[in-house]
């Protein structure tokens, strides 16, 4: 059970400052939800935590793993489900999960992959190319990765987009179980109603600054 600690993290794209001195601690079992307008830096923060972007200033520790210096190691414990599905259209759901399993060096046999596909309701389409799937089906398949990867830190960028009501309930169930097992969740969302059933800590990103929602209301 390891916490996530972000200390004084700042980031800029060229001259544009996106994040200023962001400090956040997420305890095991906690779900930190980032709210904020478009372009407020939510996705940038998630990309930094996923080690997709290089940390320019500040530091970030996942347990005792420094994300800045040990990115390859940290990525073993992190799964990011973002705007893009990261799926290959010519591969079937089964093949996409097989690809994910081997790229992320996850110990999961074919039965576990089939179970994950069944759990997201894509069993009838398990061997069809993903290219023809709807956005919701692709989202479900990308979420199926959570079930086989068992990460320590789960990063979700707008996870409810393209999901129907059943999909939203299913996802909240998965996140709830993940929290119960001591997992860390950082989520960017525009849907407070859909997040509501989850035990979570809301944060607000504005002008590159991260504030707790109560603080931001006070401002």
């Amino acid at each position: 059970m390891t916490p996530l600690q972000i200390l004084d993290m700042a980031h800029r794209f060229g001259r544009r400052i996106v994040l200023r001195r962001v400090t956040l601690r997420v305890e095991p079992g906690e779900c930190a939800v980032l709210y904020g307008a478009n372009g407020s830096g939510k996705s940038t923060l998630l990309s930094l935590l996923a080690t997709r972007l290089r940390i320019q200033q500040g530091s970030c520790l996942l347990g005792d793993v420094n994300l800045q210096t040990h990115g390859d190691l940290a990525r073993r414990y992190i799964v990011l489900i973002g705007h893009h599905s990261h799926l290959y259209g010519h591969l079937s759901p089964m093949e996409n999960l097989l690809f994910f399993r081997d790229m992320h060096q996850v110990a999961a046999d074919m039965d576990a992959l089939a179970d994950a596909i069944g759990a997201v309701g894509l069993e009838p389409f398990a061997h069809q190319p993903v290219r023809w799937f709807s956005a919701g089906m692709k989202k479900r398949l990308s979420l199926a990765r959570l079930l086989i990867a068992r990460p320590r830190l789960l990063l979700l960028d707008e996870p409810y987009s393209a999901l129907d009501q059943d999909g939203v309930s299913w996802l909240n169930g998965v996140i709830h179980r993940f929290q119960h097992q001591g997992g860390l969740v950082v989520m960017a969302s525009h849907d407070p109603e859909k997040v509501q059933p989850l035990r979570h800590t809301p944060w607000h990103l504005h002008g590159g600054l991260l504030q707790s929602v109560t603080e931001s209301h006070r401002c």
Partner: protein
Amino acid sequence: MLKAIYRLAWKDVIADFRHRSTFSSMLFFAIAVLLVFQAAFEPDPQEAQRLVPGLLWSTVLFTTILGLGRVFQAEEENGALEGLLLAPLPRGAIFFGKWLGNLVLSLLVMTMLVPLTLVLFNVTIWGHVPMLLLLLFLGTMGLTALGVLLAAMTQTARSRETLLALLLLPLVAPLLIAGVQSMNSVIASGSLTGPWLNLLLIFDVVYLALAPWGFGWLMEE
């Protein structure tokens, strides 16, 4: 890590066979180039034997460039390149996976290209075919290593295929010269030794050592 490299290459080869895209384009292009050369030169067998190394290597270069232009095509869909970069792997491993997939497709074309050239040009050096294939294999290793790196560099450019060819041609010229010269010596003496072969091996080692490092540097944001 080896499993990840294999899986990445497998994904690219499977994609190609399902869509019959790169491999078939490369093969038909190679056949077309050889047919044009044959029709243009109409060489007698002795002259053809002299021309074969140059013809083979220029065809290999053209077909490889064609394949390299599509190396990162699958990664453009659904942000798949970002997905690859989120894997807990050194960037070099991702490079080797992409390189291996491209190498397999290129080598499949090469294995068909050599007998086809000998038949078309009526050159009876069938005993040398394994050595010719080995030389093409060695040359293609370095060529595709550099090519995959340059394809990664140019993947976001609008006219990336032109840019790729412009960057690749001067950089692989020494490797191609070494390939042509070592093939000449194989055909003339039947032995697979000599300074040109050493040079070919040196280029392979240099490209395969530097390209993964360059790829990692390119992918950092």
